[in-house]
């Protein structure tokens, strides 16, 4: 793995002159999980897409800087709400698609290692259609790990899963991406309360820093501190919407 990398995003975004979000300063610290919590439509995915250098429909007026001054190109991995698995490829082929898209030879042994790390040993020749939603998202996680990038951008990757699978995936993902610089975008206060080292609530007016529990993530779902944090986050979310 490459050296730890931090990212700072400063600026505002607008669509056809209408403000999407006011000037914000988002500090994504190296090797920590930074969580961006907010209601739908507030532009949190846009923030993530700006960092990933993906197409957005906004005019962004600001800067994105890295702690080492180098561009982010080829140093981020991206995981979305939809697993984005290719239905015509097997699990192993999906995990190694990045190498083939770059014209490199996939490392078969590493692929199988990643598949086993997400708990899907023996499923490597199956097609995604033969897997459950939770298993598919595990494959997407293995694919993300396979890329071995210092920065991981997670755009609500657990929101389409059922409660039990979601809790399991949160734990597994955190365990496997513990040492990376992670930006997690979510609309779920419970998820933010469990996973964030540093958290922000995003509103059209800007970012509100969140107070996170002292305990390190991943926090138990039923811990009083987690629940208190979740409740506090929820209150700010509600107030922001009013």
């Amino acid at each position, binding site marked *: 793995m490459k050296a730890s990398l931090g990212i700072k995003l400063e600026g505002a975004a607008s669509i056809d002159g209408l403000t999407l979000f006011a000037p914000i300063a988002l500090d994504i610290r190296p090797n920590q999980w930074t969580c961006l919590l907010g209601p739908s439509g507030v532009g949190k995915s846009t923030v993530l897409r700006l960092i990933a250098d993906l197409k957005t429909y906004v005019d962004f007026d600001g800067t994105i800087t890295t702690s080492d001054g180098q561009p982010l190109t080829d140093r981020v991995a991206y995981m*979305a709400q939809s697993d*984005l698995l290719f239905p015509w490829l097997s699990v192993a082929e999906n995990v190694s698609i990045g190498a083939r*898209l770059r014209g490199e030879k996939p490392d078969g042994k590493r692929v199988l290692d990643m598949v086993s790390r997400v708990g899907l040993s023996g499923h490597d020749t199956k097609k995604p259609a033969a897997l459950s939603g939770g298993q598919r998202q595990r494959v997407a996680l293995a694919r993300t790990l396979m890329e071995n990038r210092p920065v991981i951008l997670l755009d609500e990757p657990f929101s389409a899963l059922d409660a039990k699978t979601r809790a399991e995936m949160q734990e597994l993902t955190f365990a496997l991406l513990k040492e990376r610089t992670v930006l997690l975008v979510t609309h779920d206060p419970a998820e933010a309360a469990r996973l964030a080292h540093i958290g922000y609530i995003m509103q059209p007016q800007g970012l509100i820093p969140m107070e996170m529990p002292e305990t390190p993530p991943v926090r138990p779902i039923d811990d009083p501190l987690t629940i208190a944090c979740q409740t506090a986050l929820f209150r700010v979310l509600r107030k922001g919407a009013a």
Partner: protein
Amino acid sequence: MTWKHGILSAFVLVAAWQLLVIITGVPSFILPPPMKVAKAMWFYHALIAENAWVTTQEVLLGMIIGSVLGILTALHLATSRTARAILRPILVFSQAVPVFALAPILVLWFGYGIWSKIVMAVLIIYFPVTSAFFDGLMKTPAGYLDLAKTMGASRARTLWHIRFKSALPSLGSGLRLAAVYAPIGAVIGEWVGASKGLGYLMLLANGRVKIDLMFATLIVLAVLTVCLHLAVDILARKLAKDH
């Protein structure tokens, strides 16, 4: 549709045909009874087979050449903005010219042999194949392209591994249409000017009032078209597998 259904509906069709002949008492130079057509088919089987082989070649070559050209055009359109700006209006405009009206010109240019018919079949299937595959190439789910971008994929590899693969079911739809149109193109070409082929044989039989032979030829043509349709259907299913 299973084989049993196919055989059953063929049987129903022949029975209705026979019934129609009996009830209306229509003379056999207008509508020959099934048995007479069957006899003609047996009597002329060498002649029919020879001409069927010519038409089959025309249709198959037309299918292959037209599909390859259509696929290449669609890929070119999907990857080049300039090509879209220039080629698309031409393509649409070309569809305003009835291909049937071109048949005499094609025979003039490419002669009485099989090539004028192949060109005719190519022209008639080129647009449906191009259009269907191009639509598929332009409808790649945006998330796939986002993923490819963060992975540092080149344009060419994104085209091959993602856009091409996800457009294969659309290509299958285009090929299904082509399988219906290609025989029409070939036969029209034969009507306009040919010395071989099922279309030519139909005209010949018609001119000599051999209506039973004409019907026999027509049935063979229909069977060939159905076989082509079934074969292409299998291929299209393969293309859409796992999608």
